[in-house]
């Protein structure tokens, strides 16, 4: 089955610095893929190249068989890639409901005339959009009373969940999650992990997530890819990747790996 997203030899140079060099990488439809690596490994840069924020200096980004190098972020979202951000970028002074309604913007078709004369089709679309927005808020676990709360007033966990709801509102085929559980306590992390599962199963979405919390990544992703200093150093099942000496060296520095503790307990078990 053709992979949903295929990156071939993707490189990104910022002046002299090569943030991402020659990364090739595939995501199967319906799978959850983890993308890990120490800070500054180029994970978010890679993310931004998928969503069109940056244009790759080299290589091809192929989504659903279509080359999307250089397409504008709004076009990429229309094609079916929804995303969340590392540091939350919600529309602060708009209510949670409106944030999700904005997510549906590219799926709605009311033109200027429709708005000015409030045609029946416009009213119907608005009503459907509102109901879908309420449903999505419900889906991610935000109650009715927070629907009208301003985004900036929501608690941190709810804001993270609102960002997921907003991404889902764009009816994506591929969902990109940029450190969704960052700054969350264990209880919230579990709730979000459970949400990611539900999203993948109930809405047959493919998920690519960047995450530092190894327990989450290892628990949830079917396959993991590891980046270090812009190069892909390892890829495969979570267990294989965990014990791969190159990965250990990247994370814990050369000293620890050299001692060669062998196949013992995974090096970075959270316990």
């Amino acid at each position, binding site marked *: 089955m053709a992979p949903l997203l295929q990156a071939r030899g993707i490189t990104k140079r910022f002046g002299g610095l090569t943030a991402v060099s020659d990364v090739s990488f595939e995501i199967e439809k319906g799978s959850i893929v983890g993308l890990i690596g120490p800070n500054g490994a180029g994970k978010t840069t890679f993310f931004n190249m998928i969503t069109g924020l940056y244009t790759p200096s080299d290589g091809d980004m192929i989504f659903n068989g279509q080359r999307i190098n250089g397409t504008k972020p*709004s076009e990429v*979202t229309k094609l079916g890639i929804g995303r969340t951000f590392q540091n939350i970028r919600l529309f*602060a002074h708009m209510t949670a409901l409106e944030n999700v309604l904005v997510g549906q913007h*590219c799926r709605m078709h009311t033109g200027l005339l429709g*708005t000015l004369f*409030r045609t029946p089709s416009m009213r119907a679309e*608005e009503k459907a959009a509102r*109901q879908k927005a*309420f449903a999505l808020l419900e889906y991610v676990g935000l109650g009715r009373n927070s629907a*009208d709360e301003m985004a900036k007033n929501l608690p941190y966990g709810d804001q993270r969940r609102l960002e997921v709801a907003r991404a889902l509102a764009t009816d994506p085929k591929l969902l990109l999650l940029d450190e969704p559980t960052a700054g969350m306590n264990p209880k919230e992390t579990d709730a979000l992990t459970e949400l990611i599962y539900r999203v993948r199963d109930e809405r047959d979405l493919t998920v690519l997530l960047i995450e530092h919390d190894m327990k989450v990544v290892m628990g949830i992703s079917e396959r993991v890819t590891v980046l270090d200093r812009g190069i892909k150093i390892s890829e495969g099942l979570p267990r294989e990747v965990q014990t791969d000496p190159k990965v250990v060296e990247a994370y814990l520095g050369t000293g620890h790996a050299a001692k060669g503790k062998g196949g013992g307990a995974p090096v970075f078990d959270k316990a």
Partner: protein
Amino acid sequence: MPNTKRYLTTGGVGFAVGTFFLWNYPNLGLGAALLGGLVIAALCLLYSAPLPDMIKAGLIAGMFGAVMTIVYGTHKPGVAIIAGMLSGLGAGLLAFQRSPQANPKKAAILGAEAGAIAGAWTGLALFVMAFVIAPAAGISAGDFAEHLSETVILADTLGLGSDILILLFAFGFSTLTGALLGAAACAARSLPLRPNIPLLAVIALPVLLIPLIDRAGNLLLLDALIPIYIFILLALGLNIVVGYAGLLDLGYAAFFAIGAYTTAMLSSPHLGINLSFWLVIWVAAAVAAIAGLTLGAPTLPLRGDYLAIVTLGFGEIVPILFRSLGGGPPGGTLTLRFFGMPIGIEQVDLTGGNKGINPISPPHLPLIGDFEPSNKIPWYYLLIVIMGLAIFFINRLRDSRQGRAWMAMREDELAADAMGINVVRTKLLAFSMGAMFSGFGGAFYGAFIGAIFPSSFDFSVSIILLCMVILGGLGNMTGVIVGGLLIQGADKMFIPKGAELFRRIAETKARAEDTSTVGVSALQDLTQQRLLLFGIVLVVMMLVRPEGLLPNERRKAELHPDDDTINSNSVAAEAEADPSLAA
């Protein structure tokens, strides 16, 4: 004591105002000057003292009515009626805003009390006028009362001969109308209807009645009110660009000019084309909207203040184009040679240059005939209709897909782009919508004034419009309208009329002491202090309310009625509502 600082500042302000009057108008007499200073100091103290909201609301609105009466008093005492009504209405709305009441009955009482206080203040101002200021301005109390009775018909029919009775009647009348309108406004405001029809009716009542009262009392108020309404219409358009879409536009007067010049060119003998106003206003709006697109395009890659400077640039270029494309001076025109063939850019007298274009033919209606410049009433109601439509459509734009896209772009352009909003198209839509409404404003302005000149569309117009939008409350239409009324009111009504009052006082004194009034220093001639007073209003307003008078706070309780149909917990309902949700 937390508010000693407040008492000190308010007391200081009162004292400063007193000495200012003393320095400038010694002839007002030490007593009157200090009295003025003390009254203002007392007001400030009252304002800062912990009084119940209702009294404070009445006080603030009442002061507005009193100032309007005093400033217009010597000229047209009848203005007190309108002042009483407006301040009563304002008091009611303010009282509700300060202490909202759910039950309309209690709200009506609250409004009535606040309105009564406001009306009383206006009435009181009439007394101060009759016995203190009018005599100083050369009008005896008797003349003043007689002038007043001419405009309040009841006084004559009731045969109120003596001045005191007339003044008392006017005082009662103003207090009563203030109370009634305050009560009506407050009660209507408390009804949880959406849209609140009774509230709109109560606000529309005085607005629609002003021309009749103006005609009856021959107050000539409309001459100032109509330009103010035009500027408010423009501010509403600018609010789309700056308020909703967050694009700082410093050259908005360019679209106002384009709208006015399109009307002028299409309905005046200048180019020989003379179409009817009803067609031309749409053409002007369309041309302005297109100009919005063309002038918006270069700003797309720019951010923040770079965008502001490019719009400022266009705001400067457009008037220069209109000023210079009026047939250059013979023998000196700019001719560019294109492959040897000279093109005289200024040969054709397209825009009439600094001579301007006039006369522009006014609108024509079957039964009313042509709108003459001297009879302002048809103009007034036409403008009210245009403004009503503008508010109606802008409201729709805001609560729509396009409106949300604008606000998302204002909040975080990058995130909006990532959420599938085509930022280029959204920005251009904002520019063209803003320009369209300013095109309507320009068309009306051209027809109303009858003659347009490039110098009335310069940078200061864009700046004043920006102040109206930001000071009123960014992104909130009622705020922009209130801010507009306040700023334009001060700029076009209170300061000039106040200057006339003080000049009249200076003249009566000079005539009394028979000295020549040729040399009046800038300190005494209030018109020379217009910039100072206007500047102080802006600075103080921003210190008191940095987020604007009526900031764009989201009314929480405002849920659409049709939302109750969703029963949130059943997955079935969810699935049926949106097929794509089906697992």
